[in-house]
């Protein structure tokens, strides 16, 4: 069993599912859904298996697979997971599985929809398990195509048209990846010069002692590329419009995991390969993070469309992740990884609930609703759980992430952290206003025809809600894993102090 390529299996199952769907006749919608459900479930179970099988005491990259691919470039198909990528792999599968159920009632072009969705899930998963820069970048680019098609084919037009949203999303992703590509090539070339042989392996390149000015320059490119992906202020403009235009499943995956590739890249590639550069630029990132937290949070107060609220709020929450990364210490980065997981499940749950509501009511305007808890108590539970997680209530995994980041960041940036913590008040205001506006208040008879969650609709609530609560009530289950990964990474890069850019 130890030789079984479990990561490859998890990675390829959705692709297999997509291929199978492509050869099925378009009329057989129920078999198409079944294939999607089974392949994502299998991936989810495999990644859970990896979680339980991962030896925390040993740490490091495990479940490693490596097949040489392009020898001249030092590229190999290399996979592996450690304490940082494993939670994100699990997150991808939790959300991917839920996303299939959240789109269960898709009626047009079912075949295309699920095939693209499965492709998207595989692509995102690949970025987290790849230990080779080339493979990482390859999967990252694989993600872009299904996203674009899904948005323009299945999206919705409100404040902006779905074509605009899809275009904006895609172009931002591509601009980010262009900068990234330059950075990766530079790393490869410089690495080859210093090593004497070509290598794209992250672990090998991490051993190279790049010159400090080179590190700073390349890290800036990376920070721009990954930062755009993570919707770092002021490069966040794609996020609210993109989510608003995208169909439910894409919003879930995009806000839930795709965004986290940015944070993951900043840690796994930025910090591990370019520690001196990361530390030099960190204060600037911390300041931009404050822009995320406070600026986007305040804008949320004035939003009326549910998807814009969650969109801006996710920009705001990414500020905490950036702050954690910019503080470059064990506690803060543990918190940042935890926060990525936490925000992922929370945002996906939020979008799933909004999707269910929108599918029936065809509106997302908070003012159009009111008192929905009368008609839809289960939906109300989902909204409340996502909302309370969003405002960082203890008992939800989001609290663990935020609290840990605050502790880690406070010692490094006193004032910035204090200002960032004010975000907990801002978040409470807009989340509670939104929940109050949608769920509470007098019963409105025009919504009496809405169906509450039932049957398969409950899957996202149970899976994602369960993850929120398990992580919040028993945080050690996830945090110990993260800590083993981050701890090792920080030992590898060695001690150092943050700052220099100002």
């Amino acid at each position: 069993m130890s030789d079984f390529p479990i990561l490859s299996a998890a990675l390829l199952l959705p692709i297999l599912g997509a291929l199978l769907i492509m050869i099925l006749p378009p009329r057989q919608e129920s078999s198409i859904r079944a294939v999607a459900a089974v392949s994502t479930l299998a991936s989810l179970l495999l990644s859970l298996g990896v979680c339980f099988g991962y030896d925390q005491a040993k740490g490091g990259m495990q479940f490693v697979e490596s097949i040489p691919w392009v020898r001249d470039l030092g590229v190999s198909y290399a996979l592996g997971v450690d304490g940082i990528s494993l939670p994100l792999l699990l997150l991808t599968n939790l959300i991917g599985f839920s996303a299939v159920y959240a789109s269960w009632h898709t009626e047009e072009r079912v075949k295309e929809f699920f095939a693209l969705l499965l492709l998207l899930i595989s692509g995102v998963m690949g970025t987290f398990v790849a230990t080779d820069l080339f493979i990482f970048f390859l999967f990252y680019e694989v993600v872009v195509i299904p996203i674009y098609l899904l948005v323009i084919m299945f999206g919705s037009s409100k404040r902006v048209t779905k074509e605009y949203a899809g275009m904006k999303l895609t172009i931002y992703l591509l601009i980010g990846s262009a900068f990234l590509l330059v950075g990766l090539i530079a790393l490869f070339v410089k690495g080859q010069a210093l090593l004497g042989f070509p290598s794209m392996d992250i672990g090998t390149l991490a051993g190279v002692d790049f010159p400090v000015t080179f590190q700073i320059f390349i890290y800036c490119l990376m920070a721009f590329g990954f930062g755009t992906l993570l919707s770092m202020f002021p490069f966040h403009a794609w996020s609210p419009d993109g989510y608003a235009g995208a169909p439910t499943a894409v919003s879930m995956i995009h806000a839930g995991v795709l965004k986290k590739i940015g944070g993951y890249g900043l840690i796994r590639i930025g910090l591990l390969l370019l520690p001196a550069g990361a530390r030099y630029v960190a204060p600037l990132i911390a300041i931009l993070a404050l822009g995320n937290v406070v600026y986007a949070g305040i804008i949320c107060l004035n939003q009326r469309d549910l998807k814009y609220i969650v969109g801006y709020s996710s920009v705001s929450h990414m500020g905490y992740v950036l702050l954690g990364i910019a503080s470059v210490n064990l506690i803060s980065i543990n918190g940042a990884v935890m926060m990525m997981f936490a925000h992922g499940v929370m945002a996906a749950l939020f979008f799933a609930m909004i999707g269910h509501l929108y599918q029936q009511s065809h509106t997302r305007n908070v003012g159009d609703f009111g008192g929905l808890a009368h008609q839809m108590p289960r939906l109300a539970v989902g909204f409340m759980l996502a909302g309370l997680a969003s405002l960082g209530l203890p008992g939800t995994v989001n609290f663990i992430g935020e609290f840990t980041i605050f502790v880690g960041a406070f010692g490094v940036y006193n004032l910035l952290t204090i200002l960032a913590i004010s975000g907990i008040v801002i978040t409470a205001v807009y989340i509670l206003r939104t929940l109050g506006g949608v769920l509470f208040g007098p019963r409105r008879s025009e919504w009496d025809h809405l169906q509450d969650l039932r049957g398969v609709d409950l899957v996202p609530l149970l899976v994602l809600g369960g993850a929120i609560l398990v992580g919040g009530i028993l945080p050690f289950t996830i945090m110990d894993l993260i800590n083993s990964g981050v701890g090792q990474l920080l030992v590898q890069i060695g001690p150092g102090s943050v700052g220099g850019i100002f």
Partner: protein
Amino acid sequence: MQDILSISWLIPVLPFLAFGAIGLWLHRWPQVSAGVSVSAIGISFLLSLLVALEVFSQGPGQVFQVSVRWLEMPGLKVDMGILVDPLAAVMLIVVTAVALLVQVYSLGYMEGDPGLASYFSYQSIFAGSMLGLVIANNFGQIFVFWELVGMCSYLLIGFWFGRPSARDAAIKAFVTNRIGDFGFLLGILFLAIIFGTLNYSELAARIPNYHNPAVLLPISILLFFGPVGKSAQFPLHVWLPDAMEGPTPVSALIHAATMVAAGVYLIARAFFIFSQVPQVMLLIAAVGGFTALFAATIALVQNDIKRILAYSTLSQLGYMVMAMGVGAMTAGIFHLMTHAFFKSLLFLAAGSVIHALQGEQDIWKMGGLSQKMPVTTWTFVIGALALAGIPPLAGFWSKDEILMGAYAGGYLGLYLLGSLVAFMTAFYMFRLIFTAFFGAGAGGQPVHESPPVMTGPLIILAFLSVVAGLLGSPLTNNVFAHYITAPGVAHHAASPAIMLTSSLLSLAGIWLAWLIYQKQVVRAEDLRRRWAWLYGLIYNKFYIDELYAWLRRVVVDAGARALEWVDLKIINGVVNGLAYLTGSSGRALRYTVTGQVQAYAAWVVLGVVILLLFALMAAIAAMV
């Protein structure tokens, strides 16, 4: 008997289990849900009694502690633990007793409500969170449960979510508390960074010897933010009066044993920090004293029975906080305990009245209830006498300890303020009683006494409101102070002079209320008219809610609009501008691709000529 302490973790866990069971399975059967909830808190109450017996048989100074690992990494450690000492034991009893009685009472009060199952599940998690807070052994854990208590109050205040007023009150409560928690969290972070631990006993060992006392000043001010929000001290008091939008038993719970008690309890728990910084102690005393007076003033003119009680809670919380500030921590906790009994009694009795009158809350529309609802009336009177501090009822002993603490501690101003508040308290409570219970009787509708399931808890609480004070009286040699104490807490022998003065002041308050509202020597209406501007100012709560609403509109909402404009016009504008630039340059340049070969040839020739010119110039330059 040590075994009982080692299972004391069950006390908070049982209500949580009840919450989980109701939420997941039992909500289809409301009666079963209610039964499970009541049994859970009932068992917790019995366990608390056993735990308290064990603790008090061991003598003061005994601390039982265990923890389990919860969130741990190098440099940060938050355990889930239990700490049982006399202070925690007293709080456990108070919380479980009041929560149990409130839940039993709710069986009658909430009968037939469609949300009965969720009501009891919220009650359970509320009690569980509060118990978790009480039994916590570190600041991380207390913050976790602190926030959960806030969330539960949000759920319960907004329980009748169909009413916009209930929804708004719930949001107000949560957000106001969050502002306090913002400071509280910062204080906790400071502790974590500077001392590297959040455990009370570890901190208590380090802080007195800490080399830089100046650092303790910001820490303790920030920590005090928490109680200001949760115990509704000025200027974050605005949520508590609105919190009466919840069902009345919930108000009883919030105002007596859970929620607001948490803030006072925190000050007592962290007394080892606060007592190190005299400036902060003075600040605490001043905030408490001001809140006591300020709220008592507002209570004088309110017409809604629950609102009067709500402002009296604010005022009494101010009293407790003031006690903490003058160093009389024991007196503050003693008052917290007695207040829990008589305030929950008053709210439940008020609920009994409201229940009988189909939701009427205006005291001027009541009247003559004493004949129709004797149990409710007389228990309410006992509660009011206890609150007014008439000997030998519970409130008398505890209020007196606080006044004594202020006087003996050298805070003459606060002593006088406290005495004035005692007078006002007696006056407004008996204004309410003479009007609502003994007045002329306005309504002709048939009014009946509430069922035994509601009057039973009233009678028990009335009994406790009479006897609970004896624990801290000279009659029992002040056994309470013997156990509940901390380094830096001052104890003073009871002074007959102070006792006599405060009793006379309270009696004078009752007498004045009797003159105006029963004998009607002067008509209340005339007074109101003569002092209309003052009346308006006080009746409208000094317009503080309006001020906050205005600030929210002008600063917060306008700021949000401004930033949204920036985001749409500037940031998105730049993005769209760049896109437009790219697009238009493409549009402009496409005219160069016409498909006409002659034109291409012309461009090629032009290019060649330019290149040749460059080459020529380079050659000339080389020659020169």
